[in-house]
């Protein structure tokens, strides 16, 4: 290392993710931090790079019947069913309390038809406190026989194109890992006009109760998250970052500073922390502190210098 630790009292944690400028690369993932404000008493929101809201739909949704979660080795399955308060209540009741905080607020949106995504994007577009929209494209497309929007390149690029025309906000497309080539879907999102990719959503899995001989989750299948998926997610981030010319936000089992570094080195410009927040609500801010300290000790001047380093030739 050329720079001594003493000369780097305060490494630069800020990162640019496409049009977004974040004070640090640590965000909280959709569905793991509520709408943000509920956690003000348990976590220091000010120190986060950004927060992604629970997925919002046009109308409030009650979610799936119990059982909704099952712990598995190194992680958990969930089938929450996208329970949420609806976009209007978020904009009127929650956003005012978030918009003046330093972390960027990214609203996660989902629908069951293209139109719903478009109307959601139109709805949030006028709000200055919304830094970007993240599209959850792992929802069944009702008009296409229930195939997920994020599983068909043509459908996905068409969807993003329509959302693009509905909002000037940066568009993040959250890729599904449950496809043969996430990078092909990433390219489709780019063709549609996406600014940023986030990778990845949960892996479809299941658990069976050996005593009752029945699936544990009421919906049988659920999304696997937590440390168990980290190597799988990392591989996808690596491939997507190399093959698609868009900035990537890495997601998948991130809990330690080393996890953050791995995702940055694989090509992510920022990361989202999810399931680890359930284990410890302060995980995200701990990672901000831990990352700063690691960069300082290792004499690394900025987060920027790490991004994609593992993909570059030696």
């Amino acid at each position: 290392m050329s720079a001594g630790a003493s000369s780097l009292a305060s490494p630069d944690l800020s990162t640019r993710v496409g049009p977004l400028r974040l004070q640090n690369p640590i965000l909280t993932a959709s569905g793991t931090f509520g709408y943000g404000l509920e956690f003000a008493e348990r976590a220091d929101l000010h120190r986060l790079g950004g927060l992604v809201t629970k997925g919002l739909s046009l109308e409030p949704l009650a979610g799936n019947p119990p059982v909704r979660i099952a712990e598995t080795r190194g992680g958990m399955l969930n089938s929450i069913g996208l329970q949420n308060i609806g976009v209007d209540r978020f904009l009127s009741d929650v956003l005012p309390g978030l918009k003046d905080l330093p972390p960027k607020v990214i609203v996660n949106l989902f629908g069951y038809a293209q139109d719903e995504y478009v109307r959601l994007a139109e709805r949030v577009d006028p709000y200055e406190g919304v830094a970007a929209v993240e599209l959850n494209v792992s929802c069944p497309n009702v008009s296409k026989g229930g195939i997920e929007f994020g599983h068909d390149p043509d459908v996905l690029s068409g969807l993003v194109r329509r959302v693009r025309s509905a909002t000037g906000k940066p568009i993040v497309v959250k890729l599904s890992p449950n496809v043969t080539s996430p990078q092909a879907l990433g390219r489709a999102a780019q063709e549609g006009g996406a600014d940023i990719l986030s990778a990845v959503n949960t892996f479809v899995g299941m658990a069976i109760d050996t005593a009752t001989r029945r699936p544990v989750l009421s919906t049988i299948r659920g999304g696997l998250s937590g440390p168990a998926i980290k190597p799988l997610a990392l591989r996808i981030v690596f491939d997507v970052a190399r093959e698609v010319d868009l900035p990537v936000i890495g997601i998948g089992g991130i809990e330690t500073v080393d996890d953050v570094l791995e995702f940055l080195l694989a090509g992510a410009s920022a990361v989202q922390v999810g399931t680890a927040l359930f284990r410890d609500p302060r995980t995200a801010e701990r990672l901000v502190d831990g990352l700063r300290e690691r960069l300082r000790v290792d004499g690394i001047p900025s987060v920027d210098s790490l991004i994609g380093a593992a993909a570059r030739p030696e």
Partner: protein
Amino acid sequence: MAAVDSRGEVLDVQALPLPYFLLRARVAAMEPAEPGQFVMVASANRPEPYLRRAFSVYDQEPASDGSLVISLLGKVIGRGTEALAACVPGERIPVLGPLGTGFHSVADDASKFGRAALVAGGIGSAGLGLLAQALERAGRSFDFFYGGRSAEDLVEAETFRRLSERTGGWLVTTTEDGSAGERGLITTPLEAGLRAGAGYTTVFTCGPHGLMAAVARIAADAGVAGEAATETPMGCGYGACLGCAVTLKNGGYALCCRQGPVFRLDEVAW
């Protein structure tokens, strides 16, 4: 009232005997729990299981230095409870709490009430510890119905006998194998008591789902109000994961960790 994530220091873990255990921990900065509230705890030294476990605060004692000593009554049934039962004195464990909404009826004017029936199934007694103490302090008489498969499941029978008798009430026990108390289910003496005019105006219950469902039906038939401390698989305990849905009679869902774990008997779709 904010729940704080605090470091706890394990004072001791008592085998009652196993699979039941009583873990006592000193928690640096935690407000006392209301009856029915819970904490999320984990054994910090083990990477597995990944998620914390929810435990009712069974007993608590504020210390002079501002810390709180909490007692968690548990039963080893899986990896999470196994790890906690294996904690050693001095071990640091994270404790998030107090969480959730406790028994509502306790906060009300005790003078409005007649007697109470507390109905515990096995380890469900953990959810009724603070409630029994609060009723005793409030001078409200209660009978404690304690059921289990066999005598070993009635781990805290003497504690509840003492508390109920101090209020002029009784401990009533049943076991399915007849090794303690009457042979049979605890709902049988509860029903008999209600029929015989024991004067219960409220029923509180905590235990297996089937027991609480039966208590809800019995209470409704007798025209007596009541509450249950429910349990579901829980991811975070503080409203973030939305994993702990309880189905209500109105068709909606409530979060066990926020609106619950205590619900009115007549609002849950048992």
